[in-house]
């Protein structure tokens, strides 16, 4: 069966070019980047080249780039590190209700440790405003952490405006840009962020590899104590193959970004228009225009998400849902509840995430099979009117 992969917000396959760049660093250039002999020096060189590549892609300086084990570590490090290093100035953190769990659960952990956290509500499209952030700031506020783009509904947040508010109040600003990277231009200077999290596996890089941008002068406590790697701020022998793969993935993802985004958003719009046209009682979740080029998130009324996913899988199509059954809890996605969806509508959510490897035939196949799947499940539904 021809498999169609439309869950690129969950993860992506490693690109062939990325894998090629990584391979020598497993067994040929195996040295420890801290060693002084030839293979160690070669590893060090690759490490610093990777750092420069990532820095250039986001408008940062190479010494502001720190390699981590992924987006979750970057979020944890930024938030806990900034909170602990700055707790003398205050103990208040501002975030939103729709952050990734790597941010939300970290904030909830800090609440148990004596920090106060404001979870800003979002509007029906999933947007938070700079005015809301401004109004939430107190003399105790030490950190604002707001995602650049939401992973479930694809909504883009006004990061640049929030960055201005943060600068005016001299408050640290962190943004989780895991979904934004490679989808929209990311510029740490223009955005006014002090910290920014990235993940490699969302952009055709390897899993278990990520980046934290830490602006020079920003104080954060280390999350991982040990050796002097990463300028003494993140211990552990560098995952060189992963780092080289991350850099190549970042380079490829940010190359010809506008052209790729235009192609991807055209496919997204074809999918959205087709679904809305052929299936009654469907709503698009997220912002109509301010959204990731590759994200289409729907709520299909009267049925539940997992059933759709299983039937799509039987038709060779991989997608995801924010239903309770797929979240592993009894509640549907916190993001869908935060945009005001009733539980029963949130249970029927369906997310397709498109990449530059997606072709029009893939979208047309979804449009061909999805209406039948929805009908079959609705015929079984006791709440179908």
């Amino acid at each position, binding site marked *: 069966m021809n498999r169609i992969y439309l869950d690129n917000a969950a993860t992506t396959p490693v690109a062939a070019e990325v894998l090629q760049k990584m391979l020598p660093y497993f067994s040929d250039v195996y040295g420890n980047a801290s060693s002084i002999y030839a293979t160690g020096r070669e590893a060090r060189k690759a490490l610093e080249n990777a750092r420069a590549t990532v820095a250039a892609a986001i408008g940062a300086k190479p010494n502001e780039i720190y390699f981590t084990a992924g987006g979750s570590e970057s979020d944890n490090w930024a938030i806990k590190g900034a909170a602990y290093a700055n707790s003398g100035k205050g103990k208040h953190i501002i975030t939103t209700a729709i952050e990734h769990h790597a941010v939300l659960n970290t904030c909830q952990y800090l609440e148990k440790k004596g920090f106060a956290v404001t979870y800003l509500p979002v509007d029906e499209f999933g947007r938070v405003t700079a005015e809301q952030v401004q109004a939430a700031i107190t003399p105790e506020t030490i950190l604002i952490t707001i995602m650049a783009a939401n992973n479930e509904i694809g909504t883009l947040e006004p990061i640049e405006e929030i960055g201005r508010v943060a600068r005016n109040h001299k408050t640290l600003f962190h943004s989780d840009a895991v979904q934004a990277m490679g989808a929209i231009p990311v510029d740490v200077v223009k955005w006014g962020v002090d910290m920014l999290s990235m993940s490699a596996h969302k952009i055709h890089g390897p899993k278990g590899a990520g980046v934290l941008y830490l602006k020079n002068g920003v104080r954060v406590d280390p999350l991982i104590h040990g050796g002097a790697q990463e300028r003494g701020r993140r211990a552990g022998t560098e995952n060189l193959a992963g780092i080289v793969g991350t850099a190549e993935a970042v380079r490829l993802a940010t190359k010809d970004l506008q052209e790729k985004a235009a192609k991807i958003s055209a496919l997204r719009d074809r999918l959205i228009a087709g679904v809305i046209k052929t299936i009654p009682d469907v709503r698009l979740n997220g912002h109509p225009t301010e959204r990731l080029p590759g994200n289409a998130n729907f709520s299909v009324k*009267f*049925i*539940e*998400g*997992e*059933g759709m996913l*299983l*039937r799509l899988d*039987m038709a060779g199509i991989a997608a995801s849902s924010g*239903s*309770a*059954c797929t979240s*592993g809890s*009894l509640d*549907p996605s916190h993001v869908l509840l935060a945009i005001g969806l009733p*539980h*029963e509508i949130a*249970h029927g959510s369906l997310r397709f995430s498109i990449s530059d490897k997606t072709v029009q035939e893939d979208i047309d196949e979804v449009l061909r099979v999805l209406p039948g799947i929805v009908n079959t499940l609705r*015929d*079984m*539904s*006791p*709440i179908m009117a």
Partner: protein
Amino acid sequence: MYSDKVMDHFSNPRNVGEIENADGIGMVGNAKCGDIMKMFIKVEKNVITDVKFKTFGCGAAIATSSMSTEMVKGKTIEEAMALTNKAVAEALDGLPTQKIHCSMLAEEAIHAAIEDYKKKQQQGD
């Protein structure tokens, strides 16, 4: 994550639909939790001669609905009342831990339909 039997009952559910003039109807669960099961039974001489279901819910909810209808069809009221969620799950070659509550709903839906039938019988007397 699902057994072949669960996938079979999910993709080809048995006894989907409604029964007109059903002798008993049971509805359990709610949309807020993401699962609703509605069972319809036809009873003749204390035997369940027909059973149909409609379910809003995940793959396991649909599979357990389907399996439980097969398990009570042709059974006496007493036999059907003895149906347990454990028996439904076992007949499906097991369910993932977080889906056990679906098999409980199936048991509850069958029992609710039987209770409804009994109530109607009493009212008829």
